[in-house]
């Protein structure tokens, strides 16, 4: 397909998606209303209406909406390609993802049978009343969760990834010093430092960064004050694309909430609030089995974290609604995963009685709540917090727990991490391998959670600034490698996996931007 056809197809797709959206009806309404304005002349109707909409800020809103669509559009492909190829082009990845999903669903179903808890049931009226009153303090509930186990933990998922093989690629040929020492044995294309330097050029040593150049002993006039003013201008302009570009050098603490909302085009309009209220009503009416998994996860992870325990109630309010949000199903068009289906009792196999379960198609795993926890630092209002989280999930986080060939997918990130380590710290990698401490076994849990819960919050937010700014999760793999590089000296002394884990157990004092910058731009190649 040539470029022009691609472009017109993309435009057509986006128009299709925006048609009938709330923005569309608002534009139409305002265009109609402006006809009463004296400056609109019949001879130059089109131009006048256009410039009116522009000055009123609607062109900018439309721009932001189009920009948002570009982020979540299904990749273009050959007209004859089946939809599953759009989700994931490589057949062996699709198969692996499908069998992983079967396992997970089986585990969920057997839990349901074992415990005698149905996947979904309606709440009795008194329980509904009680829940409505307790909505803002669900954390005070102490339900008996001892019988529930998380459906899977990141290490189970890692075993699946380790077993991935491309049937068309005979890796036995490569037994040499050039062979891959790590656990991931699939030949995906990942960027090495020279290419990363190009892609992440704004992180180079001579460009100002938040997380480095806002340090206490550097005078704010050298970078910080001016950068802050630019950030304020970006917010006033309400330009998504500018906000995304700005975020590459970090977001000031006081502006971050607005900047992220702008990048994600989360405008928190009345219809968004209404949507959230509907989800909340859904939570009150029905009890889902996965709700217990969510409770358990929050109690095990976020509630035990010094910095996030305060937000326990918010986490329930967001995650319980998230499970019921069918709008999330949209993202499965470009996600290699497929939402699990459940059948009404007794009618297994009958497609007419199939229902997606949970309604949003995402089964939470151990640590899932940590995707939401850091956002609680930025947003107070549950509906705003919810819409920012949902957008972040369908743009980025879903890739961390589905098997795909995407450069931001967890498989590529793991491979990239291992290759960066092998190429630039071969002695360390070799040593760790010898003592039975494969680096990925330690770094995997960091990457699956995008480092949430491992770094201190301010550092984590600086990292997520770059994820949003570059619209890619690659920085996670780079950071993981940089952490190993930083602690290399200590790691060379250890003699077991347990001691290697101990050296890397506490990341809370790390400063992420200097680590990333030095690794990318000061490593000799």
């Amino acid at each position, binding site marked *: 397909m040539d470029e022009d056809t691609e472009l017109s197809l993309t435009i057509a797709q986006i128009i299709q998606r925006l048609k009938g959206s709330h923005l569309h009806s608002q534009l139409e309404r305002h265009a109609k209303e402006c006809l009463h304005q004296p400056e609109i002349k019949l001879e130059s109707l089109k131009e006048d209406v256009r410039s009116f909409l522009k000055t009123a800020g609607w062109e900018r809103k439309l721009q932001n909406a189009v920009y948002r669509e570009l982020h979540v559009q299904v990749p273009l492909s050959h007209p004859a390609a089946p939809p599953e190829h759009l989700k994931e082009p490589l057949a062996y990845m699709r198969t692996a993802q499908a069998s992983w999903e079967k396992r997970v669903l089986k585990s969920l179903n057997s839990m349901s049978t074992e415990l005698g808890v149905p996947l979904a049931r309606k709440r009795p009226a008194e329980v509904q009343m009680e829940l409505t009153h307790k909505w*803002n*303090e669900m954390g*005070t509930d102490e339900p008996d969760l001892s019988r529930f186990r998380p459906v899977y933990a990141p290490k189970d998922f890692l075993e699946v990834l380790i077993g991935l093989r491309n049937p068309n690629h005979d890796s036995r040929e490569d037994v040499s010093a050039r062979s891959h020492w790590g656990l991931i044995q699939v030949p995906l294309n990942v960027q090495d430092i020279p290419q990363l330097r190009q892609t992440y050029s704004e992180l180079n040593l001579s460009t100002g960064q938040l997380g480095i150049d806002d*340090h*206490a*002993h550097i005078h704010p006039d050298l970078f910080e004050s001016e950068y*802050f003013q630019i950030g304020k201008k970006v917010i006033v302009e309400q330009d998504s694309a500018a906000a995304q570009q700005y975020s590459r050098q970090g977001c*000031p*603490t*006081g*502006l*971050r*909430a607005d900047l992220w909302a702008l990048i994600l085009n989360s405008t928190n309009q009345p219809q968004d609030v209404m949507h959230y209220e509907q989800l909340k009503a859904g939570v009150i009416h029905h009890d889902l089995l996965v709700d217990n998994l969510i409770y358990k996860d929050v109690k095990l992870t976020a*509630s*035990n974290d*010094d*910095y996030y*325990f*305060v*937000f*326990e*109630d*918010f986490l329930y309010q967001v995650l319980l609604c998230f499970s019921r949000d069918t709008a999330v199903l949209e993202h499965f068009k470009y996600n290699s995963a497929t939402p699990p289906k459940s059948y009404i009792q007794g009618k297994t196999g009958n497609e007419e009685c199939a229902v997606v379960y949970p309604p949003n198609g995402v089964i939470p795993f151990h640590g899932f709540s940590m995707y939401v926890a850091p956002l*609680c*630092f*930025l947003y*107070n209002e549950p509906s705003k917090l919810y819409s920012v989280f949902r957008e972040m999930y369908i743009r980025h986080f879903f890739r961390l727990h589905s098997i795909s060939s995407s450069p931001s997918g967890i498989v590529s990130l793991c491979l990239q991490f291992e290759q960066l380590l092998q190429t630039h710290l071969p002695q360390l990698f070799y040593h760790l391998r010898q003592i039975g401490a494969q680096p990925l076994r330690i770094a995997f849990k960091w990457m699956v959670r995008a480092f949430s819960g491992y770094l201190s*919050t*301010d550092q984590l937010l600086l990292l997520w600034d770059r994820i949003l700014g570059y619209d890619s999760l690659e920085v996670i793999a780079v950071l993981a490698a940089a952490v190993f590089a930083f602690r290399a000296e200590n790691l060379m002394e250890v003699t077991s996996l347990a001691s290697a884990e101990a050296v890397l157990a506490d990341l809370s004092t790390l400063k992420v931007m200097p680590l990333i910058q030095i690794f990318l731009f000061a490593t000799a190649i």
Partner: protein
Amino acid sequence: MVFVPMSKYKTSGYKGSTDSGKSEEQEGIRCVRYRCGQLSTIKDVLRQRPGWVEVRDDGEWDFNWCDVSWLRENFDHLYMEEHVRINHFRNHYELTRKNLMVKNLKRYRKNLERDIGRMEASRWDFFPCTFALPSEYHLFVEEFKRSPGSTWIMKPAAKSQGKGIFLFRKLKDIIDWKKDGTRSEEQKDAAQVESYVAQRYIENPYLINGRKFDLRVYVLVTSYAPLKAWLYRDGFARFSSSRFSLSSIHDKYMHLTNVAVQKTAPDYDPVKGCKWQIQQLRRYLTAKHGREMVETLFKEMDNICVCSLQSVQKVIINDKHCFELYGYDILLDQNLKPWLIEVNASPSHTPSSQEDYEMKYRLLEDTLNVVDMEGRLTGKEKRVGGYDLMWNDGPVYREDVNLETFGSSCFTANTHLGCVNDRDKQLRRLLKPFPGQKRM
């Protein structure tokens, strides 16, 4: 994070005081003999300071870290040589007993209003309406009747750790309480000795996800005449373990945020911890409200510290041997206005977690650095470790005030509460050995 009994805490990253090599080099510096009456973190800090030796009971000491009861019994019989230091002022209770603090603040404010005017006096609007009982009972009743439906809190004037505190809305509650035979002995005792205060309860505290918290801020005073005070960069926010709600004013656990009270609450989980470092809180507030609002808030907190000290400056008996580390308890309301709840002369140094231990260790180590028994400071420093000089017989500014900058109007205060505490680097630079080190 593992909660470990205090004796097993390690101060990882701390290699003791920064001048570890110096004591050997310098001939003739006497070692510092110290007496320590407390069992918490301070004992570790003193023990690990090079050249400091503990003396027991009757031995002569150069430095004394005592508790207030020892001070009360012994201060008047002490003869201290010039170099000797002790960690309390004789009548510190003018600031730290709730009824006296309020009396001093009110008096100072009234004088200020009379002499200068309302504007200046309005800087003193940081303490909630308070009355000492029973001496001001009639004044209290007048105010109580003027604001029906408001909630008040009754506190023993001299107790700490949340003992004896309760909330009430009706006068009947106090009368009942006075008559109540089931009150503990110590409560009856206290009432007879006339040391309770009734204070307007702040009904709209700033909540983080439904939880109330208060702030602990540390101020070190090395002299009252002239007034010299240092503000520590670290501090913490203490959270209540249950969600805030005015409807259950009898739930002691929810309204009081002292860690001592929280520890007895049914759902207290020590692993969970109920504290945030003040840097964390500052970042959270900045993310929610923007930089300007938070800077204003912190300026107002500086103001609370300085004004409260000014109000007792003429009352406290100055003594060059004395210094004092105060723990300020501050509560924020929903409008991000800080309120002074009380000042503690003996803030608890018992740590609740490893992180807390490290913070208190730093605090105490820097306190000893400022007191400077070793004579390493010139006296002109604006910063020592995590302490910033906040008041030195006048406001202290970050910028150097000289002929060039004199006309400029944009001076910033030399305080950094809630900011980065890179004390190790600063101490290394500050405490470089220099020739002719003066003896103690």
